[in-house]
């Protein structure tokens, strides 16, 4: 669904800022992939290139086989600066509805989608409010509601839960998982929170610090059904988290030029690496037992 090949982005201006050196990975249709990396490593830049909002200086992005030159249809984005992404002159309802209007969804269906999306994020009562009357976490939920009401084929999210309290955050994470499972939408989620990446993702892409490359592409072999308490306390979860943590630490420590392009190409063409796992089966059985 998403193919990112040799993606590089250097911002113009004072000497040029190399935000991304060479990024390669792909996301299958219906998958949920999390991107983690140190602050300022170019996560937002990557997302904007995928969204067609920035033109890459090297390589390309393909969505459903088509090369991205502008925002592709059927893609919804939740921005990091969610507060600035809501239209302050519109009510919450209008904010969620506007993209549907542009998509020429008939009015009755539009109303349905808006109601459903707002109910899903627990904001049915706030429909008539203006965004600036809401708390940060509520604004973020409006942005999420707008994205899901749009029924996108691809959903991009940039640190969507960074600004909310721990409780809300856990709720929104589970909400995302539920919606993802229900709608089967291909999702790319950027975060700097390692726990969140492992908890949500079926794969975790670890970015290095600048000059940014893919440090690791890791398959998360946790059972598909996730739960804030059991999943997070599973030994396998702790292992994966520790592994990603070590990777990021290593990424930060590593000097810019000590990997050759050949190395990197070899690594990147390799399939997602598996962390040696002692007994993922056990975990699976345990979870299954619980649900049965």
């Amino acid at each position, binding site marked *: 669904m998403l193919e990112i090949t040799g993606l590089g982005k250097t911002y113009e201006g004072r000497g040029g800022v190399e935000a991304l050196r060479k990024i390669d990975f792909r996301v299958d249709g219906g998958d949920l992939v999390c991107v983690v990396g140190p602050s300022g490593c170019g996560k937002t830049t990557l997302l*904007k290139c995928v*969204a067609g*909002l920035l033109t890459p200086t090297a390589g390309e992005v393909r969505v459903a086989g088509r090369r991205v030159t*502008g*925002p592709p*249809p059927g*893609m*919804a*984005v939740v*921005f990091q*600066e969610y507060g*600035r*992404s809501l*239209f*302050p*002159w*519109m009510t919450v309802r209008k904010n969620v509805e*506007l*993209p549907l*209007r*542009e*998509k020429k969804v008939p009015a009755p269906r539009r109303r349905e989608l808006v109601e459903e999306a707002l109910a899903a994020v627990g904001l049915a009562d706030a429909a008539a409010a*203006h965004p*600036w*009357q809401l708390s940060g976490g509520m604004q973020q939920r409006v942005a999420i509601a707008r994205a899901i009401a*749009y029924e996108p084929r691809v959903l991009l999210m940039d640190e969507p839960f960074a600004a909310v309290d721990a409780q809300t955050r856990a709720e929104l994470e589970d909400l995302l998982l539920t919606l993802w499972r229900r709608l089967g939408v291909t999702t790319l989620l950027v975060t700097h929170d390692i726990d969140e990446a492992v908890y949500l993702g079926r794969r975790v892409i670890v970015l290095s610090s600048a000059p940014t490359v893919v440090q690791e592409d890791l398959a998360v072999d946790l059972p598909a059904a996730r739960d804030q308490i059991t999943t997070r306390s599973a030994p396998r979860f702790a292992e994966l988290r520790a592994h990603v943590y070590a990777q990021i630490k290593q990424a930060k420590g590593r000097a810019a030029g000590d990997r050759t392009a050949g190395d990197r190409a070899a690594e990147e063409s390799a399939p997602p690496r598996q962390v040696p796992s002692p007994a993922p089966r056990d975990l699976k059985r345990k979870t299954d037992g619980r649900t049965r």
Partner: protein
Amino acid sequence: MSAAGTRPAGPLRRAALRLLRVLGLPVLLVLGWWIYSVAEPTFYLPTPGRVAGAFTEVWFSARITEDVLPSVGRLLTGYALAGLLGVGLGVAIGSSRALRAAAEPVLEFFRAVPPPVLVPLITLLAGLDTTMKVLVIVSGCVWPVLLNTVEGVRAVDEVLADTGRCFGLRGPARLRHLVLPAASPQIMAGLRQALSIGIILMVIGEMFASTSGIGHTVVLFQRGFAIPEMWSGIVVLGLLGFGFSLAFRAAERRILAWHLARGEERGRHA
């Protein structure tokens, strides 16, 4: 401190207080004028009573249709045209970097030209016909609208613009739902400046080069030493300006409701 100060005011009392606040100063000023004009009578400053008398005599007559309405009509026409032109061009210039680079120096020049400089030009042109008079008003009003619109459009939040792009907002819908509302606080500021410039240009045009209109009438009375009548014309202009300003504020409160309320919200949290 006193008992009266701590007692909660009843609705009647509150209404009375409000009325006093609104009318207090004007009443005092008129009273001052009265006392001064009675204590020290001069030819040039008639008593308020005489001006009021002249007011009803002069303005509750055919002058309403012959002078006041045409003046107001020209002002509103010129103002509306300037608004459309200013917002239209402003959106175009503000949205295009190339256009902006080309137009900015010229705009800065016109912004720097003080409106009174237009007076000689006005006396040449405004006498000719209604079209010219309207054009004079347009030529003065258009700049603040244009420049403010350019600023407002250019300052549209980047994240909001990206959001619009992602959700396929383009063309007229983008203008209606994104660009114009985002720029509306600046546009309204420009329109407010343009309104006062428009009234000034209307009066100047009529005073120096016209055969009708409120400004013309005022000058006519002044030349004929009909001083109370002249004053009554000045009062008409004052009331007109005040009325427009009130109407503008009402419109602004409607159009910028979200903006004003948001400002209050922020103020409360700050």
